[in-house]
């Protein structure tokens, strides 16, 4: 368990280091620009036009003064060192780990803040809402149909489920999302093509409107996941049903439904939990594309826009949050597995 935590933390650090290495130089440039802007602004704010003219003999002297101030400030912020100096990297690491993520260059929240934390916290609930509800729906539908099909030995349904699962695995999910928009927003106009509600988030109808806009992405994600889910549930339960203890339960005369619900599903718990966890982690990366296509107001969409606009502070913040959510999901999965199945812990 401890080893697992170490590995996950190591991954987090490596990801952040990589991000700093790759985006560090641009971040410094942005910081320098903002320092310069600040100095110039404070100069024109603090003293009146006449005084400024008296203070400096000519523009050259004014420029020298600004340059001096900028250099003073960069030194105090530690910006004079290159981004790859160890001190600087450790500094940036600590800043990111303590969620001191700075300001986005282009995006703002609805209330107007451009703080990266505010931006991400505004979008995160939407992402969690869409992806957890659809993952849970996929698992529930998979459980119902999968366990039903596991007890039925139908060759045709077997082939159908296996075939559909292959099809859903071989197509890009985001392409399927585009097709769904063509189908349900263009050909048959049931759902809006753009999933960001147009009314203000503060109005009382907002949540209902949001749910209506969520319908198409939700349906798409469920269709995408459900065949694989049925296929795997069926496979897991069929394997348990073929084990010796189930056979002996059968010979004692316990009914098939009772075996299925009391014994088989209970023993399938760890594997089903793994399935759910892997489902969530794999859709999380895909959320960047899916959310952008549906224009769902979540973290993935924010990430896409940050990439397009090359908004480095926002990219770093989002990389951190995405990695954190991803690793937390994996960690919770591992813990719950060891609770479900004590054998794993002793291994």
């Amino acid at each position, binding site marked *: 368990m401890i080893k697992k935590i170490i590995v996950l933390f190591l991954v987090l650090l490596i990801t952040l280091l990589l991000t700093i290495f790759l985006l560090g130089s641009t971040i410094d440039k942005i910081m320098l620009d903002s320092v310069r802007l600040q100095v110039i602004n404070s100069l024109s704010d603090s003293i009146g036009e006449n005084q400024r003219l008296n203070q400096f003999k000519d523009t050259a002297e004014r420029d020298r003064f600004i340059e001096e101030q900028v250099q003073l400030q960069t030194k105090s912020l530690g910006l004079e060192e290159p981004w790859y100096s160890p001190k600087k990297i450790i500094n940036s690491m600590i800043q990111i780990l303590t969620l001191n993520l700075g300001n986005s260059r282009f995006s703002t929240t609805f209330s107007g803040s451009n703080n990266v934390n505010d931006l991400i916290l505004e979008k995160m609930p939407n992402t969690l809402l869409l992806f957890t509800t659809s993952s849970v729906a996929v698992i529930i539908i998979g459980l119902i149909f999968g366990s039903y099909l596991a007890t039925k030995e139908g060759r045709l349904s077997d082939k159908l489920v296996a075939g559909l699962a292959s099809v859903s695995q071989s197509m890009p999910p985001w392409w399927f999302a585009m097709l769904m928009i063509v189908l349900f*927003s263009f050909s048959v106009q049931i759902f809006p093509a753009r999933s960001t509600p147009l009314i203000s988030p503060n109005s009382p109808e907002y949540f209902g409107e949001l749910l209506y806009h969520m319908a198409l992405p939700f349906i798409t994600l469920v269709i995408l996941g459900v065949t694989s889910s049925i296929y795997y549930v069926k496979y897991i339960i069929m394997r348990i049903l073929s084990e010796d203890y189930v056979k002996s339960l059968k010979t004692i005369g316990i009914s098939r439904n009772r075996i299925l619900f009391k014994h088989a599903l209970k023993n399938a718990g760890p594997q089903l939990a793994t399935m759910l966890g892997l489902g969530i982690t794999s859709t999380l990366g895909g959320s960047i594309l899916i959310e952008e296509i549906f224009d769902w107001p979540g973290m993935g969409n924010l*990430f896409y826009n940050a990439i397009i606009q090359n908004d480095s502070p926002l990219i770093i913040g989002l990389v951190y949050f995405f990695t954190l959510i991803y690793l937390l999901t994996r960690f919770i999965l591992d813990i719950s597995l060891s609770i479900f199945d004590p054998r794993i812990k002793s291994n």
Partner: protein
Amino acid sequence: MKKVFNFKNLKTIQKNKEGTIGFLLLSLLIVIALYTLFFIPSDTRSEWNNPLYWIDYPKNAAPAWINFFLSFTNNQLPEHVVLDQNDTVLASYTESDFSILNRTFSYSYNFNYFPSGFSIPFTLKVGEISPSIEISVQRPDGNEFLLYSNSINTVSTRDFVDNTDLLINSDPTPAIASQRIFSTSQEIRQSLNGYSQLFNFSLTSLPAEKIIFSNLDSNTPLKGNYKFIFTIYSFDNHTELQNVELIINGQVFGVLGTDEFRRDIFFGILIGTPVALFIGLTVALSATIVGLLYGLAAGYKGNKTGSFMVTIIDVFLSVPTLVIFIILSIHFGNSLLFLIGLFILFGWPGLALLNRTFSIQIKNYPYVEASKLMGESDLRIILRHIVPQLLPFTLANFALAVPAAILAESALSFLGFGDPSFPTWGQMLQDAHFSSAEILGYWWWIIPPGLMISITSMAFIFIGRSLENRFKINKKF
């Protein structure tokens, strides 16, 4: 006993059927790829992102075959028509100090929809005195509209219309003037405004083609034979018309239609095939080899080295790959080789973990231990005893690794990190999404690229599954 045997036989055949489908799909893709490589020269393939190459094509045209289905309701969409100089009727006569040359295109039009525009490219050899040209159209109802009249000036290079391809040689006589007049041109629109009293409806905000091809009393298409007359008034003997064409942009074109940038989608599908196969196969081959060797080493070594090697695999497997791909692509940019390297880097760990499990099993087989006792070297044992055992399984893994690479490439291309010098299906879908194709309903732009990605992945998944099953039946793992 007999029953079991029958069941097994049935199962093998069934699996083979899956494999056969996969193999057929793959052969189809290979045929397309080879056709593209041998019959489409590489400099033509690189024209994909060059707008000038596609200028004669219609914009956002649907596939031509949908007219077959629309013919049942007699609602066909106008087809794309290119009339060149050989289709024209020539008339020329000379006055005292100038000569007139007429080229008349006749175009019979009987659709219920307007065409999506037209363009007239022409090339003139110009003498010392600038000639002037005139374009007019004779409609089936007898009205004649003058569309365009201007003099061709060799010296000035002013733009006549937007999108004009103006190529004028600054050499002294005779100079070549090559120009293209679009239906969107301001001149055409303005001269049409002069005929507004003929029409019973307002012409404002209507494009030129919807006026020229319209009935007088309502804005519906007027069917019949149209004559486009291209006239040159030349004032010296050097002026010569080298080429003139009339291109009526249809709403349908070719096998798979065209996109917003007038590109033929079928062409894009063709040139995407070898790239996709190349990416998939290269990545899968390298990742399988690395994964096999690493996994074997980790399994065979055991102890501390082995568990350290497993930790490295763990680290790789815990990484949120798409996020890492994105930040690496932002920095290292759009190159195909970089993408391939990236996919190999994150492709091998999963395979290494699988191979490790099997190599631990094989390592403990008596014959391996025997050869160890006989003093064979580790490398020799791995290569002679363990690798051959794992070969069928590795082959299956190889096939199953291909779709992962193809899907990853398409996702990154969609995010805008594709290599623009190698157009891929993912890039086509990115263009489609950027042009809001899904909202405008351009299904012919969205379905084919995604379908090709799916077919390619599916071919390899089927082949991989059937290989895996055969391996399982043989080896009983």
